[in-house]
């Protein structure tokens, strides 16, 4: 979590986004403890209040839980995490389809193009 933030949108949301990605890529496991607010602030060079807000946001989304006096933990609720994964997939597809639509591609062209593209990718390496 070292890279710089894009400072033209709220940092607390970008940090929340980053943590979600780490969870989905299973770099952070269910039940694992997140760094303390201060540690996270140090690692990412942001205001501790911002990290607090990020953790609050993630808690509101049901992705993390704060245990009194122990810290913040990633939820062990698998269905919750599955839901987050689903939501993110949908978000990304929506964004992609919107841009393609703006460029004048029909749904059919998008489908065909996407299929062709995926078929060209070597097996299991479709992620960049």
């Amino acid at each position, binding site marked *: 979590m070292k890279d710089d*933030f*894009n*400072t*033209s*949108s*709220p*940092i*607390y949301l970008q940090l929340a986004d980053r943590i979600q990605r780490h969870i989905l890529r299973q770099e952070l496991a269910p039940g694992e403890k997140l760094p303390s607010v*201060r540690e996270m*602030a*140090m690692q*990412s*060079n*942001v*205001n*501790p*209040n*911002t990290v607090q*807000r990020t953790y609050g946001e993630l808690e509101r989304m049901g992705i993390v839980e704060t245990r009194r006096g122990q810290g913040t933990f990633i939820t062990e609720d698998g269905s919750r995490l599955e839901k987050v994964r689903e939501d993110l997939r949908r978000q990304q597809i929506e964004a992609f389809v919107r841009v393609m639509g703006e460029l004048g591609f029909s749904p059919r062209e998008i489908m065909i193009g996407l299929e062709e593209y995926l078929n060209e990718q070597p097996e299991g390496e479709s992620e960049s």
Partner: protein
Amino acid sequence: MIRFENVSKRYLTKTALMDVDLELPEGKIIGVIGENGSGKSTMLKLIAGLVRPSKGRVLVDGEPAQRRIARKVAYLSELETYYPIFTVQETVDYCASQFTDFDRERAREMIDFMRLEPTAKVKSLSKGNRGRVKLVVTLSRNAPYILMDEPLSGLDPIVRDSIIKGLISFVDLSKQTVIITTHEVNEVESLLDQVVALRDGEIIKFADVEELRSNERLSLSEWMTRVYAGHACK
């Protein structure tokens, strides 16, 4: 809480601050930005009780900011204010003798964190390390208000980074409020909760930085460039 009640400050013929009415909340890191001569340092000096308002009053937790306010306010000057013949440790000891809220243990940790040599004389230190010493003695106090006047100015990127990291790790925002003046908006951007933008002694903006980002879709430095553009060369 810090309150400015219709505060103006004139130095002989020059007006440094004009009719500033402002309430700064607790537990935040607040940046004061603006061009040279816009009144940033004057604002800090007024809070520290180092200068008096020409008009209006400045209150710190309801108490007028006079020299005795130093009990509550730790002030990092933009000037070199420590004795050059002292060693780093002697500087710490001296400050510890002046302020009852000084935490020697924290000073030790910070000296370590900043990789300073306690036996080195202040005058023999590089500019960057003198900047680090200033931060150590300021943040070693458990003062509810920490004021820092241009703590990054003229320092190289590595020193600036260590000062920012030192601030994040040693300040306790559940008990402390930090007010920092700076030109290096880029570097402190991700550190600030709120920003006070000054121009010619007047406040042109007082905002939550995250809100500014989501409302204007601009970073603080982009916003600043836009607002101050054309003005600098008047």
